[in-house]
């Protein structure tokens, strides 16, 4: 129960963060990715703000013991290898992100706007996730 409430709260903060930072607007994201056009640096400030908070808190409170505030182990990825799925996956994601200006977080946050376009993106993204997970397992 406790985990559900904290997860709901974390999701809410991240959804607010994506909305307030304007990252929910694909045009804003495309403006950042369009280095040859009218470059819009906003996304840098969003990542910078996120890392400025996350990184010190992580290294101060979690890194050494790798446990939560309640002493239970953190579930962190064990893989350290730069392997083919990582590289191929990042390339495919980059192409999709560049075509649309939409990544998974903003796609989900935009659902409540109710636009057909975003619903199509979310449905195809979910199908893609199932396909991608299958490819990775083989």
């Amino acid at each position: 129960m406790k985990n559900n409430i904290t997860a709901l709260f974390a999701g809410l903060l991240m959804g607010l963060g994506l909305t307030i930072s304007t990252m929910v607007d694909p045009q804003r994201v495309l403006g950042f990715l369009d280095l040859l056009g009218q470059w819009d640096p906003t996304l840098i400030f969003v990542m910078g703000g996120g890392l400025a908070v996350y990184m010190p808190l992580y290294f101060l409170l979690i890194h050494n013991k790798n446990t939560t505030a309640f002493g239970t182990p953190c579930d962190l990825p064990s893989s350290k290898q730069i392997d083919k799925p990582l590289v191929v996956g990042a390339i495919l994601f980059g192409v999709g992100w560049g075509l649309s200006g939409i990544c998974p977080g903003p796609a989900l946050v935009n659902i409540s706007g109710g636009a057909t376009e975003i619903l199509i993106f979310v449905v195809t993204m979910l199908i893609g996730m199932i396909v991608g997970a299958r490819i990775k397992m083989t």
Partner: protein
Amino acid sequence: MKDIYFQALAGGALLGIGAFLLLYLNGKIAGISGITYQAIASITSQNSWRWCFLIGLIGAPLIATRLGFSLPDQISAPIITLAIAGLLVGIGTRMGSGCTSGHGICGIGRLSKRSIVATLIFMSTAVVTVAISRQML
């Protein structure tokens, strides 16, 4: 500095706090693509925190709009482009084990080599994709 940059920093800080809290309180990485996939892949009681996270994320605009922030009025891209993009984003984030949140904030924030490499690759690929698609228009 423009107001939008302060807004971006504040929103970014909220993303960072949310991601930190999920790790510090739940012991989980706030990778939105991973949470979404796991949530739909197996609906079990162990997964309930993922659904709660997604409810918070998707419900956030209900609060944000009361604070004077808004979602974009429209997503102006052809349906076929959005469908292809959605498919690629889905496949890519699962194969590559993460997206902008999981690699870009949580992973880089932990100085994970995999996440730094993945972020550099998806960002530069996206920049090239935008450059090519805008040249063609």
